[in-house]
């Protein structure tokens, strides 16, 4: 783990310069790590889904099917690369790249270990939110450049959904930031003497749901809803470009798992085991939760998704923000456990209240 501790803790004022060599090495390490993790995730999800659905999942390629992602990758890469005749070729070609780069860039600020990150930006979490909001452009370019009606519907859904869910997402992060008193990811981890999921249960729920929507996971996977718009924005993609989108999907899941781990689950902190291992365990735990949800519940409709963001998550996020602000100012840090139970009680109360006031579906959609 020496490599992770090589980097100095503070940044020079002229931070983009002076560390090119270190950056190069670290970027390669992150790339390799992300690719390996994505393969692990793909295998883990497919096997896990298989077990959820009383079947085995991939088990032929390699021991326990561990090489299945490799087989998939080879299969996908030797496919013909199709470009729609009337599509916008440049946009079609650029879209996977535009979608892929931000997903990868998020990892620059993820602390895998104490101080083990590419750049301990003092705006860390803001950087994450900002960068991940660029990904939607790639999806939109894919939908537009394909010149396909399904992909256009998928892209429209993507834009509406992602713009809406960014707001509760950011607001729920602010609660964490208020408690930690820093935007830097590493400082947030260091501030977590107890995981913030206990101090911010509502924030965690909101962040989890909004993040699921941001990365198009069930029940918010409307933009690639198979049963409705077939594959949504990447319907016309094949070969390498499709593989890029596939990677983006898992890269984003990995990123979101890592961020949830960092923000709410105490990051690399944990007893006994080495920090890096703790980080991995938590990331896999979050991912397990994500695909467990995927295996169980159906998909929402687009207007329900939007209403859920605006009518349910946004007010809850605001309430959470206000409550957290009051707690941070008014309550002394010694009362940590009191705050915890208070927050849990608030969550239960809000859940009961919202189930009374908030309803959607049931009625006819207004045209």
């Amino acid at each position: 783990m020496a490599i992770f501790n090589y980097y100095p803790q503070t940044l020079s004022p002229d931070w983009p310069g002076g560390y090119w060599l270190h950056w190069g090495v670290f970027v390669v390490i992150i790339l390799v790590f992300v690719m390996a993790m994505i393969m692990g995730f793909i295998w883990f999800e497919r096997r896990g889904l298989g077990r959820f659905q009383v079947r085995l999942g991939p088990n032929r390629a390699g021991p326990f099917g561990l090489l299945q992602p490799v087989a998939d990758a080879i299969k996908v890469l030797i496919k013909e690369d199709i470009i729609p005749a009337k599509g916008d070729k440049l946009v079609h070609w650029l879209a996977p790249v535009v979608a892929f780069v931000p997903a990868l860039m998020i990892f620059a600020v993820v602390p895998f270990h104490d101080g083990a990150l590419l750049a301990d930006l003092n705006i860390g979490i803001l950087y994450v939110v900002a960068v991940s909001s660029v990904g939607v452009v790639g999806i939109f370019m894919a939908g537009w450049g394909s010149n396909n009606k399904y992909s256009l519907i998928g892209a429209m859904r993507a834009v509406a959904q992602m713009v809406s869910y960014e707001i509760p997402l950011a607001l729920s992060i602010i609660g964490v930031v208020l408690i930690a008193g820093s935007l830097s990811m590493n400082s947030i981890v260091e501030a977590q003497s107890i995981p913030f999921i206990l101090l911010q249960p509502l924030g965690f729920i909101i962040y989890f749901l909004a993040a699921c929507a941001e990365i198009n996971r069930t029940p918010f996977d409307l933009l690639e809803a198979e049963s409705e718009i077939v594959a949504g924005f990447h319907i016309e993609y094949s070969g390498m470009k499709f593989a890029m989108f596939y990677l983006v999907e898992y890269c984003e899941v990995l990123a979101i798992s890592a961020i949830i781990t960092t923000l709410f689950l105490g990051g690399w902190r944990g007893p006994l085991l080495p920090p890096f291992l703790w980080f991995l365990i938590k990331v896999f735990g979050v991912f397990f939760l994500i695909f467990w949800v995927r295996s169980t519940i159906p998909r929402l409709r687009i207007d329900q998704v939007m209403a859920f963001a605006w009518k349910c998550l946004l007010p809850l996020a605001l309430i959470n923000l206000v409550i957290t602000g009051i707690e941070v100012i008014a309550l002394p840090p010694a009362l940590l456990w009191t705050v915890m139970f208070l927050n849990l009680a608030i969550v239960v109360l809000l859940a009961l209240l919202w189930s009374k006031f908030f309803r959607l579906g049931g009625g006819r959609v207004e045209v």
Partner: protein
Amino acid sequence: MIGLDIAFWILAVVGIVAALAVVLLRDIFRAAISMILCFLTVAGIYVTLSADFLAAVQVLIYVGAISVLVILAIMLTREVQRGSPSNKLRIPAFIVVVLFLGAVSFALLNTPWQVSAELPVEPTTAALATRLFGENGYILPVEIAAVLLLAAILGAIVLVREK
């Protein structure tokens, strides 16, 4: 500082080319994509200016929100088929712009700027917050900005709402 210089030149050239593409491309969708590129390079420029918080906010607001809104509007109005034609004022406008640019360049190149030798504040986030909310800060404009945003949201909803 050589790294910063290189970064500036790359970002400046890409930004100007992207901005030109916004104005000159016929395909509105591509123009919007170029606009996003332009905004991203501006975020990079902010980074070279030691304004990291602003850079992140620039990406978040301009790329994540405004550009996406613009693209959505492009979709909704289906203007893409018509392209992005110019009106009759092309040549007069060009002359005006060149004159304007010449005047401004002349002015700014011939002004003796009192460049401070101090290194900029970094990180800026806390300092910005102090400037905005601290004493002698801009708390009133912040409040007004909130009201402005509220008004804008309401206005947009009222304008777009279907009867």
